[in-house]
């Protein structure tokens, strides 16, 4: 469904994404697991086409189409959407309005179902503004609900668990599974091994490169052993990164 080939991004003479290769298959939940500063959100922005994030080189092919030159709107119209890590708050826009804008003209019934799926009582939230009166966790859940209302072909979820309390986490996970069951492929970007347990496949990201891809349990274990204890976290030296990539390939 999505093929990312040899993607590079340089900003201010710094390589942020470094020859990244990634494939998201149709119907799968694909986790991207990485520590802070490894390029997770940048990858999400590149795929969504966010302003200021244009690849230096490389290709992104979605359903056979090169999306590199498309705007955010055009990519959304092709079927890609993003649940932001820190979603914007928009004064005067109610939850009902926001979810209604999310494509497909979902009616109140569908909007209410989507809110239910993320553990939010529709009657309490439908007429609330998505402004600063919402807590961070509430706003995140509304973001996920809006993705559910849109039902994109590919949903990019950037750190969907950040700001979510421990009680709401199982509801969130079951919501993501439901979104997948309803037909959306999911690229879930996270630093949490718990979150990727629901993925079909997981890729480990470090310093803008995918180090390896495999089943969730195996990748989580590899991530724990190699990334969480890595002395070069956030800024791995090139030789250390080469070693990790080599090690990953040898382990295969």
């Amino acid at each position, binding site marked *: 469904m999505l093929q990312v080939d040899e993607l590079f991004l340089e900003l201010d003479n710094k390589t942020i994404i470094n020859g990244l290769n990634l494939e998201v298959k149709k119907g799968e939940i694909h986790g991207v697991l990485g520590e802070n500063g490894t390029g997770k959100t940048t990858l999400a922005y590149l795929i969504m086409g966010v302003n200021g994030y244009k690849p230096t080189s490389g290709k992104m092919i979605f359903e056979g189409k090169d999306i590199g030159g498309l705007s955010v709107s055009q990519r959304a*119209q092709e079927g890609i959407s993003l649940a932001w890590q820190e*979603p914007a708050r928009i004064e005067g826009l109610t939850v009902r309005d926001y979810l209604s804008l999310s494509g497909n003209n979902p009616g109140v019934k569908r909007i209410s179902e989507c809110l239910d799926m993320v553990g939010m009582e529709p009657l309490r939230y439908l007429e609330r503004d998505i402004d600063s009166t919402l807590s961070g966790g509430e706003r995140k859940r509304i973001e996920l609900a809006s993705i559910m209302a849109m039902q994109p072909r590919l949903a990019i979820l950037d750190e969907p668990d950040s700001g979510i309390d421990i009680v709401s986490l199982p509801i969130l996970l079951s919501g993501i599974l439901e979104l997948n069951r309803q037909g959306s492929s999911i690229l879930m970007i996270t630093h949490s091994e718990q979150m990727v347990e629901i993925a079909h496949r997981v890729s480990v990201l470090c310093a803008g490169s995918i180090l390896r891809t495999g089943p969730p349990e195996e990748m989580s274990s590899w991530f724990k052993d190699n990334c969480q204890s890595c002395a070069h976290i956030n800024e791995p030296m090139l030789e250390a990164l080469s070693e990790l990539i080599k090690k990953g390939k040898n382990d295969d």
Partner: protein
Amino acid sequence: MISGSIEEEYEGMVEAYEKAGGDKDSLADKDIAKLVVHENRVLSADEVSGIKLETKETENGVDIRFLIEEGVKVKKPVHLCFGVLPEEGLQEIVLKVNAGDNSEVSVIAHCIFPNAVKVIHKMDADIEIGQNARFDYKETHYHGEFGGIELILKARVKVNKGGVWQSTFALSDGLVGKMDYDFEVFCEEDSVAELIVKAYGKGEDDIKILEKIHLNGEGARGLAKSRLVLSDKAKAEVRGETYGNAPHSRGHVDCIELVNGTEAVATAIPMVSVTNEAAKVTHEAAIGSVDRRQVETLMARGLDEDRAVDVIVKGILR
């Protein structure tokens, strides 16, 4: 130029009122107090139990005394409709309001100038809110696309002990023209004042807003809030002033101006003053272009950029 019988003028006003978003049926409802004024003529004045609307036509407008009797809680909003339908004209409204103690009323005012090329509309209001009374005032303007209007709106409001004054002024359809909005509120003990102004300046609109709140009684609270969007060559100056003069009084000035384009000019001057050590007054003002992250959030749902900006602007002015 529209002229003719009172009936014809009334029909013209009702039609314009409906086009401006007003509920035509409410003007026909006998259970609703209402007043319809075209230029200096009172076309309709209906009272309901507990409400008195006394009017006197003057050379250029109408003097109005609006009384809500003590303890009266009016179920349906009172409708006021002022307008000038011809391209040119002057309308001066002098409004005296007295809301009796423990009364409650909601007022919806529509001001309609759909054809204005050279129209001046002045309102001078003197308002007193009784003890524990509640007065909710919403004023919406519709100006058409010619921009030939000058608004001079002045109000002095006294809110007595425990009273509540809430006013919302909205002008987002048509061109504003030239506007000078000057509302000043004096709050006594435990009273509340909330002033909200929302306007969309386009073309060469020139907007001046002054919201002034004096928190003179212990525990009084006030909010001066403004939301403006400016495009083309429009300019706006917003002054929000709040004075905390009594113990435990609390005030806040909150101004957001969005500038859409390179030629519009926005100025915000928040002013806060405290003369009592137990008072607290805060302010925040933000001027800038439409937030890119907000735009892209909506674009990621499939809206094109223009539509996304439109949704954000409408939200700010809602």
